[in-house]
C-alpha cells in the first residue's frame, strides 16, 4: 500500500499547486472590484480592526501630544514669525483667486481640473508584510469612494484607492512597486515640464518622475504637483520637491528624483480626493491595457 499513499500525496500536491497558481492569476488580473466574498471578509475584518485601531489611535495620540508639549515654546516662537508672513500671503491668494474667477467668467470656462471634493478617512490597518504597500481606510462605497481616487495626507499625495468594499477600502501607496501606478505630474515654475511619477527608490526614499523632456531646465527644490491630465486625479495636488535630476538611459528624457511631501510611514488620517471635472473613460483611452492616472 505505501505506493498508493505516495501517489495520493503527489496528486494532492499537484492539485493544490494548480489551484494556487489559478488563485494568484485570478487576483493579479485587472479587476474593477473584488468579488463579494472578499468584500464581505474585508469589511468584517475592517470592522474588527477599527474596534482595536481607533482606541489605539487615541492612546498614541495622547502620548504624541505629551511629546509635543515639550517643544511648545520653541515652536511657538517659530510659528509666530510665520503667521505674520501668512497673513500677507492669504490676502494675496484671495486677490488672485478673485482675479482668476473673474477671468474665468470672462472666458466662460467655469470648471477647472483642480476642482475637487475632499472626503476625510481614518486609517484602520496596514499590510504588515511590507512588500505591497497597502493601507486600509474606514470609508467605502457607501461614503462615495470609487476606485483610482487620489489619496492625500495634509502634507501631500500618498497614493490611490486600489479597491473599494462597501464599508472600507484599500489604498496603494506611491511607494509600492507597481508598473501600473503612473501619475501625470507637473513641475511648478518650469515651462513644458510634464512627467510621470513612475516608481520609488526604496533605498533613498525618493519618488521617480520620469519622461520629462530633455530640454526642460529643472532646479533642486522645485515643487512637483499632479497635472490632472491623466484624466483621473485633479490637478494641483502636492507630490513633493525635486532633490536631484538625471538624464535617462538614452538621453532623450530626464528623470527627477522627488522627495515626497507626505511621510509614507506615519499615516493616521487621510483625505480621499474626488475629482469634480468629468473623468476620462480610462478604458476608451488605451483599450484597457494600462492606466495612467
Amino acid at each position, binding site marked *: 500500500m505505501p505506493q498508493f499513499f505516495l501517489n495520493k500525496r503527489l496528486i494532492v500536491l499537484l492539485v493544490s499547486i494548480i489551484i494556487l497558481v489559478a488563485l494568484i492569476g485570478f487576483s493579479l488580473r485587472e479587476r474593477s472590484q473584488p468579488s463579494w466574498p472578499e468584500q464581505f471578509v474585508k469589511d468584517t475584518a475592517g470592522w474588527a480592526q477599527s474596534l482595536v485601531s481607533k482606541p489605539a489611535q487615541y492612546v498614541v495620540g495622547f502620548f504624541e501630544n505629551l511629546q509635543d508639549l515639550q517643544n511648545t515654546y520653541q515652536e511657538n516662537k517659530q510659528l509666530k514669525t510665520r503667521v505674520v508672513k501668512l497673513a500677507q500671503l492669504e490676502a494675496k491668494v484671495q486677490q488672485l483667486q478673485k482675479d482668476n474667477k473673474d477671468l474665468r467668467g470672462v472666458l466662460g470656462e467655469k470648471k477647472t481640473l483642480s476642482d475637487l471634493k475632499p472626503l476625510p478617512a481614518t486609517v484602520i*490597518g496596514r499590510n504588515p508584510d511590507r512588500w505591497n504597500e497597502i493601507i486600509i481606510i474606514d470609508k467605502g462605497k457607501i461614503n462615495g469612494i470609487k476606485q483610482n481616487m487620489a489619496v492625500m495626507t495634509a502634507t501631500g499625495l500618498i497614493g490611490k484607492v486600489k479597491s473599494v468594499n462597501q464599508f472600507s477600502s484599500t489604498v496603494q501607496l506611491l511607494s509600492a512597486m507597481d508598473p501600473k501606478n503612473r501619475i501625470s505630474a507637473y513641475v511648478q515654475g518650469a515651462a513644458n515640464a510634464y512627467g510621470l511619477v513612475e516608481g520609488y527608490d526604496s533605498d533613498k526614499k525618493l519618488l521617480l518622475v520620469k519622461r520629462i523632456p530633455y530640454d526642460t531646465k529643472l532646479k533642486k527644490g522645485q515643487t512637483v504637483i499632479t497635472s490632472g491630465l491623466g484624466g483621473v486625479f485633479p490637478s494641483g495636488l502636492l507630490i513633493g520637491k525635486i532633490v536631484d535630476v538625471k538624464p535617462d538611459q538614452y538621453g532623450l528624457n530626464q528623470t527627477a528624483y522627488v522627495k515626497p511631501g507626505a511621510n509614507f*510611514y506615519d499615516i493616521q488620517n487621510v483625505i480621499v480626493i474626488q475629482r469634480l471635472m468629468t473623468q476620462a473613460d480610462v478604458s476608451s483611452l488605451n483599450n484597457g491595457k494600462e492606466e495612467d492616472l
Partner: protein
Amino acid sequence: MRKLILPLLFFFLFVLESLFIQFLPAGLYDSKKILVPHFLIASILFLTIFGSEKNGIIYGLIFGLLFDVVNVEIIGIYLLLYPLVVYVVAKIMKILQANIFIASIVSLLGVSLVEIGAFEMYTIIHITSMDFMTFLKMRLVPTLLLNAGFIIIAVYPLKRLFEKYASLRME
C-alpha cells in the same frame, strides 16, 4: 467559550501585526531596516508544536487566507506559505523534543521560511526587484530579531495555553 479562545487569540494577533506596523515609532520605521511582524505564524507554530499538527494546519489555512484577502490582495501567497511551514515544522518536531528552547528556535526558523518564501513568490510575480543580499540585510535579519523578541516574551504563556488546550481535547 473555551472553543473560542484560540480563534480570538489568533485574530487578535492578526490585528496586532497591522497595528504594530501602523504605530511603530517613525524613527525606527523610516530607517534602512524593514521590520516585519510575524506574530501570527509564530503562535500558530507553537500551537503545532505544543498542541496538535492538524489544528495548526487548519488555522494556518484559515489565517493565511484571511491575511491574503485583507492585507495582500493577492490570494495564494500566505495561503500556501502558512500551512506549508506548519507542515515542515511538524515534520521537524517529529525528531526533536518539544521543550521551550527548541520550540523557540524551530518557530524562528519557520518565520524565516515564511519571509524567504514570500520574497521568492513576490519576485516571481514581479512585485519586488530586490536582490537576495539586500533582502537579507534589509529585511530578514531585522525581522528575525523582532520576532525573536516576540517569541521570547510569548513562548511560555503560549506553551501553557496550548498544552492546556491539548489536554482538554484529550478528555
